[in-house]
């Protein structure tokens, strides 16, 4: 186990663009850190640099007390699980898991013990003599994790390990990985573009965008207090609703004029000018008066209903999350939305969140 420090990490390809722009991050010993972000945001490149599979253009990677920039991958004390599993197709499961230990010159007994222990943890003991092509997707994923476990690494690196699995298996493996982290207590870094995985698995989440970290925090911190428009829009399904509003300061509060003309007072916030109001789908409800909208579509998801409704003059529809037994207006009908002012977020023109003082919540 080890802590991991990233100091001003940059990555520039030869004659190409800069894909990582000076990332600073401290990952605590035993922490489950999730890198999340859209495709091409640099999260996988960051992980490959930690693993030693990509050169670092500038900055420092510290694993434990060692500056790892020039340390070869195998000596960094990291093990990586790839999206494609990357199992050696010509080797059996046992040989796949033993390969790294064999190269490290471990004795046959040590190798056998380590493989048996890892296969017991992952319940793949009965698969040890099979070749990867004879395994299902979930079994292959377990073997790939097993190959990482046998090396007893300080840091586990998971590069979108569940994205090739079907939905049901993904949920199951998500739970198993979380349990594995609890059992092993190792430092784990997990790359995903799936916000559900990020929210459910991570002790903390680092949200990447265009080669920068937008925000680092616990899943709930990020969900409840997003630092900017990107994080607010990226985490949460359906995504946070945004409304352009004009605001003026009114004592210790901000007064906001909503589309339709209604005024909303946000205690604890002090901002004025053209701002963006953010409100999550579960914090909107239909009422007798409020923001007038026309209902576009109602989606029934079983446990909840998502209503998409358009406010006058707005191109993007607002999403409203209702309980499955709540009455939902019909498509095409007119309705009014009440906004819970305590749950509103305000973003300035630079996209950064305007913080509200504690008592406001």
């Amino acid at each position, binding site marked *: 186990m080890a802590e991991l420090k990233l100091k001003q990490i940059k990555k520039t390809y030869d004659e190409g663009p800069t894909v990582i722009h000076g990332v600073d991050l401290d990952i605590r010993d035993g922490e489950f850190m999730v890198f999340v972000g859209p495709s091409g945001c640099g999260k996988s490149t960051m992980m490959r640099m930690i693993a030693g599979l990509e050169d670092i253009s500038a900055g420092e990677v510290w694993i434990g007390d060692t500056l790892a920039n020039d340390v070869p*991958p195998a000596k960094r004390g990291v093990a990586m699980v790839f999206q*494609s599993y990357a*199992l050696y197709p*010509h080797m059996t499961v046992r040989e796949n898991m033993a390969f790294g230990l064999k190269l490290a010159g471990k004795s046959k007994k040590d190798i056998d013990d380590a493989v048996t222990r890892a296969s017991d943890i992952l319940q793949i003991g009965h698969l040890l003599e099979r070749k990867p092509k004879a395994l299902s997707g979930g079994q292959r994923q377990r073997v790939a994790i097993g*190959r990482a476990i046998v090396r007893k690494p300080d840091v586990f690196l998971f590069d979108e390990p569940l994205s090739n699995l079907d939905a049901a298996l993904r949920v199951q493996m998500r739970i198993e990985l979380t349990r594995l982290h609890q059992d092993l207590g190792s430092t784990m870094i997990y790359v995903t573009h799936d916000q559900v995985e990020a929210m459910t698995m991570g002790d903390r989440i680092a949200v990447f965008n265009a080669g920068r970290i937008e925000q680092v925090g616990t899943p709930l911190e990020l969900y409840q207090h997003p630092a900017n428009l990107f994080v607010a829009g990226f985490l949460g399904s359906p995504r946070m609703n945004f409304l352009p509003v004009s605001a003026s300061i009114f004592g210790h509060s901000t007064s906001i004029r909503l589309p339709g003309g209604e005024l909303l007072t946000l205690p604890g916030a002090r901002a004025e000018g053209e701002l963006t109001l953010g409100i999550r789908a579960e914090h909107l409800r239909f009422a007798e008066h409020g923001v007038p909208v026309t209902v576009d579509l109602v989606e029934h998801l079983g446990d909840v209903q998502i209503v998409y409704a358009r406010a006058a003059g707005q191109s993007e529809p607002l999403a409203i999350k209702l309980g499955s037994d709540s009455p939902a207006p019909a498509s095409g009908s007119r309705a009014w939305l009440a906004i819970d002012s305590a749950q509103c977020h305000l973003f300035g023109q630079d996209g950064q969140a305007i913080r509200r003082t504690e008592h406001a919540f």
Partner: protein
Amino acid sequence: MEKTLPMPRAATAKKINMNKLANRTLHYLVLTLLAVITVYPFWWTLVTALSTSGDVFTYPPRMWPENPGLDNFVEVFKTIDVIAFYKNSIIISVLTVAGTLIVCSMAAYPLARMQFPGRNIVFGAILATMILPSEVNFLVNFITVSKLGMGDTYTGVILPGLAGAVGIFLMKQAFEAVPNDLVDAARVDGATEWQIFWHIMLPLARPALAALTILTLVAAWNQYIWPSIVMASPDKFPLSVGVLYLSGAFSFKIRVVAAGAVLTVLPILIVFLFTQRYFLRGFDGAVK
């Protein structure tokens, strides 16, 4: 209305089936014709070798042997030392195959998986050698081999052909087809470049290695001009060269020469029959 609907559908289906049948028949006809054109010279040689009487050059040529027997084969064994020639052919072929596999795969690996300046130029230069027929190199190779003191040796026959462009190309394609993640996984597992080559790349390139083995084996077994230039001592001749001793200066027994040719081709034909599946798979990889 509902009753008439299936009729046109059935008619269309029948028409499609007929088209398919006609298409398939044409394919088979063309392929059969090609097969006959390709196989006939071998068949004629076999018929000539097995016949013990009659005119060799009758027209139309005979399709079945006349008074079949093995007399011509017996005469081959009496006239030349077939076993010694076989031994020489086997030594040359096996060493050529082993050398080619080692040299081509080791040359192809950096071209496929490593980044270094001039990589494409090097590969282009290797490919350019495919434009020239190998006979063009004979003079230069002969002078080189002679000056290195390798004239009249197995090494002299084997060495110049080891780094063939076809072999390097075939192996490069095979190495490039190995997913990058496997190489990365091996790196994280602690493998050195050599261990990646040996433990990961070579086993995964097995179909290409098999194809290259067969290609090289056929070429090495059948080569005639180069060994006959390098070798001076008849006791070191491979079978393909030695069989020419059957046509002496004053006599020319065509049936015996045909029997010698059959004996030369037979081993390679048997090897090919058992390994053609790899041979074809190797070419699959080369054109994908």
